[in-house]
């Protein structure tokens, strides 16, 4: 939202899927994010506990989300996030943005970026930073889709 302008309710809300695609039961943080995204005017889906990467992609396709937000606190991000990206690639889906977050060491971030997972926010990141990043990625995707259909 630009400064000095009111929010337009006619705009279609951004649709985002929050998922923890591996064995990780720490869902307090993701609930905080879900509420923050809702308060930012988005339609928020949460994939529930312990979805497989296939389930995450299935859900994202069926619901036609703009953004998948992956989160892991257990250190499996290099495997699980990559799995999700590989399934997306295999199905030829390039019009869904993927952002990441969780306990991710700085050394891993360039590799994740290279896979196409942006953001990769750690603990202590202000919610507004995350929301703005998601909005930016969603707008890119919306522009891409306009050309598609």
């Amino acid at each position, binding site marked *: 939202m630009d400064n000095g302008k009111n*929010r337009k*309710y006619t705009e*279609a*809300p951004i*649709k985002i899927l929050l998922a923890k695609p591996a064995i990780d039961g720490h869902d307090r943080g993701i609930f905080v994010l*879900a*509420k923050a*995204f*809702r*308060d*930012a*005017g*988005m*339609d*928020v*889906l*949460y*994939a*529930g506990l312990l*979805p497989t990467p296939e*389930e995450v992609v*299935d*859900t994202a*396709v*069926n*619901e*036609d989300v703009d953004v998948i937000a992956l989160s892991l606190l257990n250190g499996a991000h290099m495997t699980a996030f990559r799995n999700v990206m590989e399934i997306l690639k295999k199905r030829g*889906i390039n019009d869904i943005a993927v952002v990441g977050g969780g306990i991710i060491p700085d050394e891993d971030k360039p590799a994740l970026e290279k896979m196409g997972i942006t953001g990769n926010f750690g603990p202590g990141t202000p919610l507004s930073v995350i929301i703005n990043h998601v909005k930016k990625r969603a707008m890119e995707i919306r522009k891409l889709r306009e050309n*598609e*259909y």
Partner: protein
Amino acid sequence: MNIDRLTDGILKGDYRSIARSISLIENSGYESRKEIISRIYRYGNAKIIGITGPPGVGKSTLIGNLAPMLEDHGKVSVLAIDPASPFSGGAILGNRIRMQAALTRRGIYMRSVSNRLYNGGLSEYTWDITKILEASGSDFVILETVGSGQADVDIMNIADITCVILAPGLGDEIQAIKSGMMEIGDIFVINKTDREGSYLAIKDIRESLNMSNKLSTPVIGLNSITGENYDEFVAHILKLDKKNFREKYYRKLKMVVMETIYNKYSKYIDSIEYNNGILDKDPYTMAEEILRNGLGKVRRTYNSHSEEENNHIG
């Protein structure tokens, strides 16, 4: 826009095309809605099963059990509606979590949408979305409303079969004879029969239905944890014949036509701006004039009117 490719995908049952066209219908306005629906309107013949009831009675969990059982009799799709926030316009679409496991196992298509602050327990585009799901080759479309109150009865105009889901402890026999939701059910379900008071709840509803001469309306007690009595529930849904629904379907169409006309006219009426002469007319005369002169003339009539007035004064 390549709508032909999309609608071909819908008719083939391709999940990506279905999902994308639902988004287009929700987001891209009247024109693309018309384009999509006019292409697929003649296809599909599904029973539309409406699931409604107060928040927290187990609607989503019930669908998680019901959908795989119906899948044995034909293709199933699910549409679930959740409420949007009146403050931010955002929504948490949480229905999916309750049925995720069952749906993934059988590969059932499920879509959750926000009601975008539309009243009545549905979203503005519910009819269009059910039409898409029908055209995708579904034999059953399960439609879950927002957790609804006594007056959210729009579902009865869209669904072929309306199932009202209740739970024990929601109220006494006076609640059971009230108007609104208690009148629209084709099947009544008391969920959570393991809870105390479920027998009384079934009895109260049975009695109030008997009083209004609805002896044939089933009241079923379900237990969604053990799956008790679900066979009976499914049998009742299968028993209802789609042929009996032509009149209901016409009512549905009438509703969509009315809404479309309302939306179109209100845009024009909105565009009439304040001018000197406009307060002279009472609203009924004005409305009749607008109807008589047609949409195109509305603006011209009223704006030229204002010019005359201005000249007159000048």
